[in-house]
């Protein structure tokens, strides 16, 4: 309790001060105005290690208000160390906010590597943590050059990369960070979400904000924006196929599943990646 007083005395609501909030919000507005465009912003040092969601946390802290309800997930799980730490930190520095694990109750969801299974609503914001914001980095190491490529719409090399995969392996190998074209303009990195989640970005009701703290970039997908994975006409986009496997706990087969090896003999089970959805479903079914 004493610690809370200390924080309330010396820190602004939601940790970062108003000038920084204003700067980050401006970057967010610009990002929303130009869907898929990476807006540079002055990324601040956070009491987290870089790579632990410093970009996402700066967005969350800039937009959070005392009436918001926050949910934090890491690879679909509400209970991982990363998710728990972020949740505890935000709750401590912004008194009055609600914390939940239920997707439908949350107004802001900060996430890493997954989009929740339950469809998002227009009053919800999904904040994604991004390690590498540049989708063209695979084909071009130079930042100057990738910016030029974005400006000129010079995306031939990205397509060529996909073509080479098809020629060599029969299909595109990219399993996560699948490049998407936003609003028929910029090619964007959807952050390391699996292919399964990519279609959820298209014409979604909610706002998606992407924050990369180390790379100092913010970008966004506004509601009802076309987001298309890069595909060829004769090689359509394909999401993960679990060959009819079911979640061991809730029995669902229409969710993204994690494969877990149980014994040394190689016996394995599948579990829902989205733990709160799995829990909810189990409650409903009475399992």
């Amino acid at each position, binding site marked *: 309790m004493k610690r809370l007083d200390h924080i309330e005395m010396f820190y602004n609501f939601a940790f970062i001060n108003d000038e920084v909030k204003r700067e980050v919000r401006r970057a967010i507005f610009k990002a929303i105005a130009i869907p898929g465009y990476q807006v540079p912003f002055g990324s601040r040092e956070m009491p987290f290690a870089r790579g632990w969601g410093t970009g996402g946390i700066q967005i969350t802290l800039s937009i959070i208000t005392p009436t918001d309800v926050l949910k934090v997930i890491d690879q679909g799980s509400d209970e991982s160390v990363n998710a728990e730490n972020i949740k505890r930190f935000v709750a401590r520095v912004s008194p009055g906010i609600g914390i939940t694990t239920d997707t439908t109750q949350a107004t802001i969801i900060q996430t890493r590597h997954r989009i929740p299974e339950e469809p998002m609503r227009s009053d919800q914001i999904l904040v994604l943590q991004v390690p590498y914001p540049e989708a063209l980095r695979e084909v071009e190491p130079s930042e100057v050059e990738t910016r030029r490529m974005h*400006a000129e719409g*010079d995306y031939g*090399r990205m*397509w*060529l990369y996909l073509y080479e995969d098809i*020629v060599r392996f029969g299909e595109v190998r990219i399993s996560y960070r699948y490049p998407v074209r936003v609003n028929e303009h910029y090619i964007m990195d959807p952050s390391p979400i699996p292919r399964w989640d990519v279609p959820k970005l298209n014409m979604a009701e909610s706002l998606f904000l992407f924050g990369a703290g180390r790379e100092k970039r913010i970008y966004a997908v506004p509601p009802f924006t076309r987001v298309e994975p890069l*595909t*060829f006409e004769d090689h359509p986009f394909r999401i993960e196929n679990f060959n009819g496997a079911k979640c061991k706990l809730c029995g669902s087969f229409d969710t993204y599943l994690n494969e877990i090896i149980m014994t040394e003999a190689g016996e394995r089970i599948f579990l829902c990646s989205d733990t709160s959805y799995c829990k909810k479903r189990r409650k409903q079914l009475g399992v």
Partner: protein
Amino acid sequence: MEPLLRVENLTVFFGKECNHCLKTTGPKMETNRCRACGTIVACQDVSFDLFEGESLGIVGESGSGKSTLINVLHFKTPAKGSMFIRSEFLPSSLKAFLSNHRDGYWSKNLLSISPYHKKRLREAIMGIVYQQPSLGLRMEVSAGGNIIERLLDAGWRHVGLMRTKASELLNKTEVPPERMDEPPRVFSGGMQQRVQIAKALVHTPLLLLLDEVTTGLDLSVQARVLDLIRNLKNEFGFSMLVVSHDLNVVKILCERTIVMRYGRIVEAGLTDQVFADPIHPYTQLLVASRL
């Protein structure tokens, strides 16, 4: 007949320029480096017309500004001066942006349009073949992929169709199509050059730029590549700009020739005329010094 492309007063400086640059350089001064500030005047007041289906040769010793000229035309090097194309040859998607609304006949000055439009125009109407295949090709990507890159730029999105088109082109340039999935670095020099030609021609450009295409190939391969280019020109009907220091290449491929020295045009005319009856002393020297 009206020209397809008109280039006027093209001037290229490399370095900070001063008032003395133009006076202290050129064939008369026998240098292209400015005595006062050290700037290199790579091209000065280069003007020419290129007609439809014509091939124009540019000859001169190394350092005479031939390659700079080609790079300017390919929008790789910025330059002063102007370059126009006839509006009717502009791709339909760019007509609204690039045609000159006062004139209507010629386009806007292509040297001062935005980089975005330069890129679009380059993709739509130009093909280039360099001396070193490594400049024109991506050596780590398959030969087919190299050719298909041009189609991808043009908006093709069907792998099967693109592969058919690429193998068609490889067939025409005498590269075995069954090797299209190998990277060009395992090919011989002549074959790499032919893949480069296929890449330059796959989107049926209006203008093909050849920068010393046969230099570095052995004589029999040179002959085959030149033969190939001539046949493809008859088939596709593109215009060509051939830069070479080898007079024989220009003699075989080109109807008209420009002779450059120290960044200036010293003589221009029909190829036969320039080589049979050279007027400028430098051209006379060039023709006489042929091996």
